[in-house]
């Protein structure tokens, strides 16, 4: 069983496919994507806490979440609508990051039972252009850099406050 997450991004194309196999029954894999408290937990990390503001997980529903830093400032917010929703099988949704130059992207999430206790997730993400896709793929770099800048800013601000 391949537990490593794979990202397939071909040069010059405006889509990517993320695949991952889990040692989890498909029902639990699906649950982690639709229950707000569970989603918040796996989408949070040491430098950002994710909070679900709206999670209307059904056909024609919509969602909204944000991530806050240690001081409670909102550093990231994203929203979208749900176009198709089939329990334990499929979620088709849009994903849009607020206050960024990125346009909305279309995501097809397919949940598949491999055995009783293992499952597979396939995320097919479609971007408006090749450029937007490549910029989004690079984002973890830039995001990390912004965080580093913010931390630097904090330190500098503290230094200035000292007499």
């Amino acid at each position, binding site marked *: 069983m391949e537990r490593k*997450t794979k990202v397939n991004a071909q*040069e010059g194309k405006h889509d990517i496919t993320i695949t991952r196999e889990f040692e*989890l029954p498909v029902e*639990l*894999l699906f649950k*982690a994507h639709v229950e707000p408290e*569970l989603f918040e937990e*796996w989408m949070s990390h040491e430098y950002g806490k994710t909070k679900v503001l709206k999670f209307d997980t059904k056909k024609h529903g919509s969602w909204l979440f944000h991530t806050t830093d240690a001081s409670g400032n909102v550093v990231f917010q994203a929203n979208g609508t749900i176009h198709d929703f089939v329990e334990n099988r499929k979620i088709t949704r849009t994903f849009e990051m607020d206050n960024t130059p990125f346009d909305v992207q279309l995501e097809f999430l397919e949940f598949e039972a491999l055995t009783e206790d293992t499952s597979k997730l396939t995320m097919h993400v479609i971007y408006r252009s090749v450029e937007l896709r490549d910029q*989004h*793929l690079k984002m973890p770099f830039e995001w990390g850099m912004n965080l580093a800048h913010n931390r630097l800013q904090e330190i500098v601000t503290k230094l200035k406050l000292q007499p």
Partner: protein
Amino acid sequence: MELRRDVFQAIADPTRRAIIALVAFQAMTPSAIAEQFDSSRQTISKHIQILTECELLKQEQSGREILYHFNPKKMKEIADFIEPFRELWDDRFNKLEAMMKKYKPKK
């Protein structure tokens, strides 16, 4: 405003990708590169300049001529650029898996 040149911007353009493909095959002078395209020499020369600025191409003086070489090290960087994105999702999914293994339904 001076545009920031990076590798990703450089390969986003189809003409620039074609130039990389040509030069990867053999080192070429700017005029030999320009001859392969319908665009004006100035346009091609601008493309070459961008590719050189982001180190996808390297210049080499050969007698009175300048030859352009392909820099494979920089191309490796492009292949690696999705790795942080992959790791981001891998971390999230590892967390999801660990969390759901411990999951006990309420009530």
